[in-house]
């Protein structure tokens, strides 16, 4: 018996469709993609064909008009197959949110239909070598040169870098204003002075492409400014707030896959004359895994629905919905390797990759320590107000 989350018919369809894609298209190739560090273009085409890139985009721009919850349902199922592939998909939404949230009508009309159709991938560029958790330390600059902007600097570890056609980035326009001196811009692959650095070698998430974005006297037209000048950090924070439940959902999907493998194995594996699932040591591990996964899922769904309900300030909830499920995913995948024992450590079985992949979830889109900061700051404010 599984928990009834009272999904609508359409939400149920999203779940079924994404599960089908995970089973038929992702699982059969995931080990190979991981081994070869291969960008999953074929699967991106399948996701485009399935209309999934338009999930969160309003119907007027060719999307399906879904919300955070629908997005979470989709990535959870895809992540059940492979989170490297899912991150590639989800990063496109991360890059698209700034346009959706802050773009002018012209910008939306220009970019969103192609994004919704899956014709163009998007990437989001915030992180730099010296600006990780401390986002205000970014060094990339954008200078107003009359009829165009000139951008200089380097973004680091950008998911979909080099593969995406559209980039939303944050650059400093007024250094002296500190956090209020940042602005958001839209860049296109092929813009003059815009190139890509090396592709990173990673512990996990190896199907996704992680690269530097290099801006060397990069000239872009004036109309690429996204939102108002000086609004850059608000754009970044709003985007991340909206995206974090999705990262939690990826954790749920990954953990669920690890549990599924663990239970399947524990039922088949015979030691001391009986399947190892009959041993309490294994049973308790599986019970903890299952319970924590369900709690994660309930949290992600509840937060996503709250956001879709139209609340204004949801930084705390959003941070919680990333923090807990991703910690659970790390723990569950580690335990899955333990349940499978020596086999779990071998690349022949999928849990080894799951454990390697899981680690990134505690790091990217704000480390889990940063999530705790966000939650604690919100608590501080809430209690002061009372």
């Amino acid at each position, binding site marked *: 018996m599984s928990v009834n989350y009272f999904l609508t018919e359409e939400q149920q369809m999203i779940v079924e*469709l994404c599960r089908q894609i995970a089973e038929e298209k992702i699982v059969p190739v995931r080990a190979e993609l991981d081994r070869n560090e291969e960008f999953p273009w074929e699967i991106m085409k399948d996701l485009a064909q399935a*209309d999934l890139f338009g999930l969160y985009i309003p119907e007027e721009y060719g999307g399906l008009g879904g919300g955070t919850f629908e997005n979470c349902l989709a990535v959870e199922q895809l992540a059940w197959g492979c989170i490297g592939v899912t991150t590639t998909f989800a990063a496109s939404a991360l890059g698209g949110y700034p346009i959706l949230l802050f773009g002018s009508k012209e910008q939306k009309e220009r970019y969103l239909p192609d994004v919704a159709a899956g014709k163009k991938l998007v990437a989001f560029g915030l992180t730099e070598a010296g600006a990780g958790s401390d986002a205000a330390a970014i060094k990339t600059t954008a200078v107003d040169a009359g009829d165009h902007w000139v951008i200089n600097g380097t973004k680091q570890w950008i998911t979909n870098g080099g593969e995406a056609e559209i980039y939303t980035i944050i650059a400093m326009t007024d250094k002296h204003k500190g956090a209020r001196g940042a602005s958001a811009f839209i860049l296109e692959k092929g813009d003059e002075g815009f190139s890509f650095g090396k592709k990173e070698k990673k512990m996990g998430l190896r199907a996704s492409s992680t690269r530097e974005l290099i801006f060397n006297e990069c000239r872009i037209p004036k109309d690429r400014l996204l939102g108002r000048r000086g609004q850059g950090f608000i754009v970044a924070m709003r985007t991340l707030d909206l995206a974090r439940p999705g990262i939690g959902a990826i954790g749920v999907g990954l953990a669920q896959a690890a549990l599924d493998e663990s239970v399947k194995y524990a039922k088949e594996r015979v030691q001391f004359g009986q399947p190892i699932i009959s041993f309490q040591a294994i049973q308790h591990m599986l019970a903890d895994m299952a319970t924590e996964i369900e709690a994660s899922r309930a949290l992600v769904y509840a937060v996503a629905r709250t956001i879709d309900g139209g609340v204004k300030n949801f930084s705390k909830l959003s941070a919680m919905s990333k923090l807990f499920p991703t910690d659970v995913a790390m723990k569950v995948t580690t335990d899955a390797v333990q349940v499978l024992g020596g086999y779990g450590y071998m690349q022949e079985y999928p849990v080894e990759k799951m454990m390697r992949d899981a680690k990134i979830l505690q790091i990217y889109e704000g480390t889990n320590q940063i999530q705790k900061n966000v939650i604690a700051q919100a608590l501080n404010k809430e209690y002061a107000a009372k």
Partner: protein
Amino acid sequence: MNIIVCIKQVPDAASVKWDREKGTLIRDGVKSVINPFDYNAIEAALQVRDELGGTVTAVTMGPPQAEEAIREAISLGVDQGVVVSDRAFAGADTLATTYTLSKAIEKLGGADLVFCGKQAIDGDTAQVGPGLSVRLGIPCVTCIGDMEVLEGGKGLRVKRMNEFGYDLVEVEFPALFTTIASLNTPRVPSLKGKMRAKKAKIPVWTAEDIGADPDRIGLKGSPTQVASTYIPTFEARKEMLEGSPEEQVEALVERLKGAGIL
């Protein structure tokens, strides 16, 4: 361009268990799915439509619940579908089936292009496609493993796979082709397609609706009859060869010699 794809609902081979003692299928939990080769037919039809325009209509003959197969086809991008269903069709062999399908296609206004899966995995006859082409009076090429649209969209150039390799064959429309797995990779459904499939009205046509001659459908229209069925007997089946690996291999070699193979 009027493109028809003929599909069939079959028991999912993965979920079918067989009771060897009784010689019956264990039907509990057996799902009905679209015949695997038909997915390639659907994909081929969609590809041609996407290139040349037109409408893809899925046609299936079967019990009323075969409408699930049509809905799935619509979720994949097929424009519309129809279930041809009537108790009078029961017992149809391939001759009666091709007649029935041809009457349905006639009611649909004929076809410029028809795709069928090479064969259904429950019947394995591979006869409906070629038979149907005769009913429709159009050429047929079976087992196509590759295809491209001819210059000017007049027809298809296909690889007709055979035991030795393939023949490259050109056929102008109207024509019928039967598809095999290596032809293409069937697409996944789309969300919009799934929503459309959910809402779609799927007409169910009876023998009368398609103007079928009662003498040419179902059991009456079927020259072949099942005289008897029986369970193949495998005498002395399943002998496990025990012992050390050397002994096992020795025992096997002995038995194969005994059977005159070695």
